[in-house]
């Protein structure tokens, strides 16, 4: 436990040196929703196939998932910084398990993700009048926490296996494009061509978004949401196990 808290303390200390970064982390989904969401809502209105909600409501879950995805990618990039500083290898000789190192690294960022979700929900409700399912709020925040952790473990696999950060950056750019656009983040999957819809349904970020959408505004089928939540949990655990293995192979 003390090793875990030490890693969280370190991450917090490093992040606290850059207040702009913390501000951006906290307000990024909110600003995205206020600019992009309101823009699309005003120009195009609500898309078909999402029931009786406006685009702002629909996009809320997408923007929260996008934020967890971005935090995870930024956190995993810090492996490169740590490796360049040499501190990465020294830390591997500290009295902690490899799993504690990974969990500690993501824990602080999970807290940021949960805080930004709470902020986005509160401002979304106050400024845009989004009707939220308050009783499901704990499930939504749990979804944000697991979502951020799952994507961090996923990215960590690549950050630990790839030695060059330019290659890693190229891969994350491809991931951003593929995962975000082949999902229910910006538009519903139902009206899309069948191949596109299938790709979206196989995409773990769709599972996360559908969970967040159900727990925020109540859209979706409870049983399929439960299935998607379970699938995302399995995806996260598998990524965690593989990332720990990659960390053990660092030489």
């Amino acid at each position, binding site marked *: 436990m003390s090793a875990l808290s030490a890693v969280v303390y370190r991450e917090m200390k490093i992040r606290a040196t850059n207040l702009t970064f913390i501000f951006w982390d906290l307000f990024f989904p909110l600003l995205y929703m206020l600019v992009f969401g309101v823009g699309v809502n005003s120009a195009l209105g609500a898309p078909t196939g999402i029931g009786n909600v406006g685009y702002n409501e629909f996009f809320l879950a997408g923007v929260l998932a996008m934020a967890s995805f971005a935090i995870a990618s930024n956190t995993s990039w810090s492996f490169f910084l740590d490796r360049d500083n040499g501190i990465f290898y020294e830390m591997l000789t500290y009295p902690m*398990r490899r799993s504690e190192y990974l969990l500690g690294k993501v824990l602080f960022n999970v807290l940021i993700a949960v805080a930004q979700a709470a902020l986005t929900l509160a401002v979304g409700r106050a400024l845009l009048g989004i009707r939220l399912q308050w009783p499901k709020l704990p499930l939504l925040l749990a979804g944000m926490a697991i979502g951020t952790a799952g994507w961090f473990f996923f990215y960590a696999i690549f950050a630990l296996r790839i030695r060059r950060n330019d290659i890693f950056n190229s891969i994350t750019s491809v991931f951003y494009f593929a995962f975000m656009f082949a999902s229910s983040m910006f538009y519903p999957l139902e009206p899309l061509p069948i191949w596109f819809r299938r790709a979206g349904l196989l995409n773990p970020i769709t599972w996360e978004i559908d969970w967040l959408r159900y727990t925020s505004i109540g859209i979706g089928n409870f049983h399929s949401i439960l299935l998607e939540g379970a699938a995302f949990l399995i995806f996260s655990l598998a990524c965690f196990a593989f990332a720990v293995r990659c960390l053990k192979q660092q*030489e």
Partner: protein
Amino acid sequence: MSEFALEVENLVKVYASRGKAPIRAVDGMSFRVPSGIIFGLLGPNGAGKSTLLRMLSTLTLPTEGTAKILGYDVVKKPIEVRKRISSVIQATAVELLLSVKDNLLTYARFQGLDKATAVRRADALIGEFQLGPEVDRKVQDLSGGFRRRVQVAKVFMVDTPVLFLDEFSTGMDPILKRQVMNLLRAEVEKGRTIILTTQVLSEAEELCDDILIINRGKQIARGDLNTLKLLSEGVYEITLAFDHLPDNIQAEIAALSPIRSAIEANAIDLALKIEESRVMEVVSALSRNRHVLRVEVRGASLEDIFVELTTREGRELK
């Protein structure tokens, strides 16, 4: 608890990469190190020193064999090993985005030190390592030498019984190096065991109670300085300073087949493996018909022994 700080048995590390022949970086080493001494690992570049330290500090898994720190196996009980070690790795390892003081405090937190003790020790070390004016600056704004100071200072924050230092003095000025060497000696007197690698042989000569010379992943010689000097009996260092450097001196030196030689300004410095009775004969030959300002004849230094043993091993391998 084991009476030995370190027990290594048939340790092997093979690096295999696709399309290339496997490299045996450490090739069947076996040795034990008692607690409370400074143990030096010496060897030329690529000898396997850093790989050995990486295995001992649980950074790298051995391919074969066992290694134990205070009785704990580095593969089977890595956490127990990590609780008992601190490491200064070869590369500069610091938290660039944190201040000097936060570097020390964060390290202490990882090692489970309580806050009051950590602050007290950090303040003391900031003074000892002359980091006072830089204490609140981010390490990324400091020079390489200062970064190394921060890195080395960290291991004095804690009382882990075993300390690994890989080329610890890199980038340090001579005054600070002297202070750190004194600190290391004081730590050993408190009972800590220090395993260090260095290429600065005078450093090893001054610090180490016991030395292991390795080359190409294998042990070549082991013992304290006197034992190693016996292994290299018949090696003498000769220094001659002239009023001006003789024209044909290089050819004369080459004819003597020295272990090493150096010419600096008007002086020559040779290490020769010869019979004692021939030493004065060589000095006379080199001085004949020349104006000699200074003559020095000494027994072998660790550097001579090191060069003699590692090149002898190389010759035998060929």
